[in-house]
């Protein structure tokens, strides 16, 4: 189990500065899609009962019952699986590093981390009508490693997060330089 204050492999003097998930609009999208799918069988049922005699035949009614049940179970699972995917994608910024935790489908989970000193280029991207209105977007963080970069997807206040991480990286680098000079 993780929490906003504690996570696995936490170092002794490390504390969480930012704990990020995607914007609430993602949850709204999941709920809206689930509700939209859930209406379909009801519309078909009303159509069949009012305009046809299809459901008067027991065999067809049995077939319809099974199909509706299977469809609703699919819709419930679709909603929950998407919520799990949303909920388990987390980006944690501490005073020492950035941790990227991503649930990729049902059987793949990726956890990567890099020290703040290894961050090079931090870019935010707010793209689209709703992203601009509701103030969410992506943050791209290029690390010192060749192709590797972190992407904070659809997080709230992307510009502010990018600015704060940039400041943290500067402070971290200054502090490390001071420590190195002190050691000499």
């Amino acid at each position: 189990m993780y929490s906003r204050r504690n996570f696995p492999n936490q170092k002794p003097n490390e504390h969480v500065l930012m704990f990020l998930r995607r914007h609430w609009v993602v949850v709204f999208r999941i709920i809206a899609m689930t509700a939209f799918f859930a209406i379909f069988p009801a519309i078909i049922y009303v159509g069949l009962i009012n305009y046809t005699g299809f459901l008067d035949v027991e065999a067809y009614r049995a077939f319809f019952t099974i199909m509706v049940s299977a469809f609703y179970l699919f819709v419930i699972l679709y909603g929950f699986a998407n919520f799990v995917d949303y909920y388990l994608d987390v980006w944690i910024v501490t005073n020492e590093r950035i941790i990227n935790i991503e649930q990729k489908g049902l059987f793949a989970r990726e956890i990567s981390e890099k020290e703040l000193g290894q961050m090079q280029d931090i870019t935010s991207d707010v793209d689209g009508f709703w992203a601009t209105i509701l103030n969410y977007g992506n943050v791209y963080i290029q690390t010192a490693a060749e192709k590797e970069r972190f992407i904070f997807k659809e997080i709230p206040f992307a510009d502010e997060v990018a600015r704060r991480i940039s400041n943290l990286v500067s402070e971290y680098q200054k502090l490390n330089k001071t420590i190195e000079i002190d050691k000499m």
Partner: protein
Amino acid sequence: MEIPLSVFLFGYLVYIAVFLFFSFFNLFHMTKYGFTSFWAWAVTVSYIIVTALALFVSYYYIAQIDWTQSFKIFDVAQPIY
């Protein structure tokens, strides 16, 4: 052409097994990696309750059907038109 209705019931039971398999893994991820918050538990418990309710309602209607009958494929359009 006639298909015994029980074929559909068998297919439905296979579907339920697949559904429970995916549900198990989603719940497993949620309990193992899910962060401790009220909303995580509320959604997980709601999912279990709604699923149980859907399966119970399905069982209620499915239990009323005589599964020894046959499904006539070419007669499907007749009650519609």
